[in-house]
C-alpha cells in the first residue's frame, strides 16, 4: 500500500489486518505514536488524518491510503516548513508548562491540541478539556496540559496567561516558616 506520512509517500507491505498504528510503529519506525491499549480507549496512538485526530489503533492501515497522515514526528518539520522556528508552539508550550511527565500520552495529546487550535485558535478552557477528553493522561491530572494550551493560545494572541496557583506568593501571615 501507499501511505502518505509526514509529507512523504511510503510504499509499505503489511498483513491485511494490521492497523495504521502497527504500520507506523513497526514498519515505518514512527515510534512516537504510542500504543497504550490497542482498543481505542486511551488515545495514546492519536495521529492526524487530513487534519483530524484519529485513533491509529482503530484504523486499518489499508484504509489510510489516500489520506494525509501527520504523526508527532511530523509536527516540528511542518512548523519549520511553514516558516516557524524550532518546534511547534504546542510542543514548546507543553515543555515549558511541565505537561510532559512520563510523556507517553503526550504525542497523542499534543496532536489533539494542535487539531483543536487549527480549527479554533482561541478555545475556552472547557473547549480545551472537551477536545482532549479522548486522550488519557495518568501523570499530570491534566492541569499543566490545559495550562500549556492556554499559554500557546495566549502567546499567539500576544496576551499573558493567568498566574498558576503555585506562582501566587503566600498570603501575608499565612506562611510563617517559609523564607
Amino acid at each position, binding site marked *: 500500500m501507499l501511505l502518505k506520512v509526514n509529507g512523504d509517500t511510503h510504499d509499505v507491505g503489511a498483513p491485511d489486518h494490521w492497523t495504521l498504528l502497527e504500520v507506523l510503529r513497526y514498519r515505518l519506525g514512527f515510534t512516537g505514536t504510542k500504543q497504550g491499549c490497542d482498543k481505542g480507549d486511551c488515545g495514546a496512538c492519536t495521529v492526524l488524518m487530513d487534519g483530524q485526530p484519529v485513533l491509529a489503533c482503530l484504523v486499518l492501515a489499508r484504509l489510510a491510503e489516500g489520506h494525509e497522515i501527520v504523526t508527532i514526528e511530523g509536527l516540528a518539520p511542518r512548523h519549520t516548513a511553514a516558516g516557524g522556528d524550532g518546534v511547534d508552539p504546542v510542543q514548546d508550550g507543553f515543555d515549558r508548562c511541565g505537561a510532559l511527565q512520563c510523556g507517553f500520552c503526550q504525542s497523542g495529546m499534543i496532536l489533539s491540541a494542535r487539531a483543536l487550535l487549527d480549527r479554533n485558535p482561541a478555545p475556552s478552557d472547557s473547549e480545551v478539556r472537551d477536545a482532549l477528553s479522548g486522550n488519557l493522561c495518568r501523570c499530570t491530572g491534566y492541569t*499543566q496540559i490545559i495550562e500549556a494550551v492556554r499559554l500557546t493560545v495566549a502567546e499567539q494572541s500576544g496576551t499573558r496567561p493567568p498566574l498558576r496557583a503555585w506562582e501566587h506568593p503566600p498570603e501575608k501571615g499565612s506562611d510563617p516558616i517559609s523564607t
Partner: protein
Amino acid sequence: MSARDTHGIGAPWGTFRHVGRPARKIDGLDKATGHAVYADDITLPGMLHAKTLRSTQAHARVRSVDASAALALAGVHAVVTGRDLPTTYGVLPWTQDETALAVDKVRFIGDPVAAVAAVDEDTANAALKLIRVEYEPLHAFFDPFESAVRHEPAIHEGRQDGNVSKHVNLAFGDVDAALAAADVVVEGDYFFHGTTHAAIEPHCAVARYAPDGLLTVWSATQITHYVHKALARVLGLPPHRIRVIQPHIGGAFGGKSDPFSLEFLVAKLAMVTRRPVKMLYTREEVFYTHRGRHPMHMRYRTGASSDGRLAGVDAKILIDGGAYSSFGLVTTYYSGQLLTAPYAFPAYRFDSTRVFTNKPPCGPKRGHGAVQPRFAFEVQLDQLAERLRIDPIELRRRNFIGANTTTVNGQRITSNGFLACLDRVERASGWRDRRGHLPFGRGLGVAGSMYISGTNYPVYPNDMPQAGIQIKIDRSGVVTAFTGGNDIGQGSSSVVQYLVAEELGLGLDQVRVVAADTDLCPVDLGAYSSRVTFMVGNATIDACRKLREPIVAAVAAAWGVASSLVRLAHGFAEHVDDAARRMPMAEAFALTETRWETLGATGSYNTPALGGQYRGGAIGASPAYSFTAHVVEVSVDAETGRITCAKAWIAHDCGRALNPMLVAGQMEGSAYMGLAEALLEEHAVNRFGIHRGPSLLDYRIPTSVDTPELHALIVESLDPEGPYGAKEAGEGPLHPAIPALANAVFDAVGVRLTHLPFTPGKVLTALREAGAASSGGAR
C-alpha cells in the same frame, strides 16, 4: 550518616540560579517531539516476539504442560515452562515466593504458565493456543476473611501461618487506658477497595544475549538494580554478565517496582534462541499483573479529650494481598507505622494482618500502605470534630505534632510545615466563610497527612550507599552525571541536572544526565518510596563539592588570589569582587586538569540511623517527612447519588521546591489520582476470579473533563538534611484527597461515607438511612 550526606539549605554561590525556577525538563523536548525511546520502541536485528500463556484457573495444581504442538508450529523458536525457570524470586529477600512461570501451581487467573518466542506476535499468539495445560483445581480464596482463618489448602505451601502473609501487632503506650479515660471515643469500620496504577505504557522488556555471554535487558522498570539482582538469581548467571537498562518509561506509580515475569522470560528466551526477544504486555495483562493498592478492611477507635486533644488510636486491619507477597511485608508495617504524624497522640496500637487470596497480586501504589489507614483516620478526626463541635481544621491544628520531635512509634520528625499547609488551604478555599454555610448538596472537607522521603532501610540489608552518582567532566565544558536513579517521568534526571548546574556554576545546556543503566551508572536503589530527590540529590551535591575545590583552587592559583575570591556561576569561573575577571568553565576545567589530573568525582548518600528500638521500628523511618493538607469541594446530587468534585486545594510541604513547576505537577497528579480512587476506579475480580473490567474503558481513570480544578499551593519548610532543604513531593500529596472528599460529602449532605468507592448507590443508601434515622428520631 557522614559529612558527605548533608550540605545545608543555602545556595552554593550565594544565590540560586536554577533551583526554585520553573525550568524545562531535561527530556521535555525529546518527549514532546516523539523522539524519546521507550521499551517497545526498541527493535533489534533478528528480534523475536514473545507472548505468555496465562492460567485460566484461580487456584490449581498444574498436572502437565504439553507444548509439543506449539513447538512444531512454523515460526516458533522456543517455548519455556515453569521447569525451565524454577528459581523463586521476590522483591524482598524474606518473601521470595514467585516464579517466572508456574512450576507446579497457579495462584490466580492470569498467573503465567508458559511463554513462546516466535517470528512475530501473531505466530506467538497462535502457538499459545496449541499449548495443553492440565489443571487439578483447588479451593480458591476470594474473601480475605476466609483466608485469615482457613489454612487449607495453603496458597503457598510450607509456611507456618497458613494463608497469612504477614502479621504485625505493635503497641505504644497504654491504649486501652487512654481510650477508657477519653471524654469522647469514635469507633467505626472502614473499607478501602482495590485500585491499580494504570500507567498508560504497558509493561515491556527486550533482551539480547550476546555471543560472548553478556545479557542485556531493557525494561520498563522503576528499579533497575533490583531487576539486575533478580535476573542473576533466577537465570543462574553471574551478575557481572548482566546489564539492565531502563529506557524512557511511560508511567509507573509503583506498578513497575517488582521484578516481573516478562523480564526473566525475554532473557531466558534470548539465551535459548540466541536471538533478541521482546515481550509487550497487552492492556489486559497489565490489569492482571496489577501490584496495585491493597484492599483493606479497617476498624478504628480514636479517643480525645473534650478540648479535642487526641488521647489514643486503636486500629485493626485486614489486608487482602492477592496471590503473592510482593512488597506486602512492608505494606503491612506501613499500614500502621505511617499514621503517627502530623498529629501527636500518646497511645497507639495497630494490629495488621495481610492474607493471601487467589487474585491478582497487590503491591506498592503511590502512597504505599498508608493511603487506606489515612482515609479511615482522617474521617474519624472529622467525626471527633463534629462530636466536640470544633472546626475540623482547628481540631487538626490543636493536635499538631510540631517540628524536631519524635512520634509515638519512635520516628524522628525534623522539618514540619503542616500548620502552614492548613493555613494555605483554609484561606485559598474560603473555608471560614463557606464550610458549613453552603447550600444543601455542596460542601467542603479537609484532611492532612505525612509521608516518607525514602526510608533508611534498603530492601536487602547492607551498609553500602543507598544512592550513588558519578560525574565526568569534559574539556568542552560539558559535565555528564551518571546516576542509577530511575527517571519515571517525575523528573529525577532533571533534578540531577539542576543540582549539578547549581553547584558547578553551569548553564543547564552544559549538563547531561545518563540514568538507570547498570553498566554505566553506580548502584542506586531506584525510584520508590519517594527517595530519589532526597537521596540522589544529596549524592549529587556530594560529588559536585568534591569537584568544586580543585577547580576553584586552580583558577585562584592562576589569578594569584585566594580561593575564597573565586566562584563558579553563569558558565564561568569569576572573581567575586570583579565581574570583568572571569574565564569560561571549559578553560577552568582545562586549567584544573593541567595542574592535577583528569577531573571526575563520585558522590554517595546514606541515611542516618533512624527508627524505633523494636522489631520493625526501622520500617517507615525516613530522614525527612513531607506534610500535606487538602480542602476538597464537592456537590452531591441527592436524587441520583452522584458526587461531583469541583475543586481541590492541595498544600504540600516539600521542604524546598527545586523546580516549583515539577513539584506542582506531582501535587496535581497525586490529587487527581486520589480523587479518582474515591469516585471512579475499582480493581476487583468476580466470584470466579476473573477481572471485572481489564480495560481502560471499564477501569475508569478520569479524563480531562472528569478532573476538577486543582490548586497546588507549595509550602517550603527547608529541611536541614534535604538537598538545599528539599523533601519528597511525588506521593505524599495523594493521601488526604480521599478523606477530604469524604468529609466534604458530610458537609454537603450530612452522611458519613466509610466504604470506598463512593458510588451513587452507596450515597443513596446512606441518604436513605440518614433520612430514616432522622424521621425515626422525629417520631
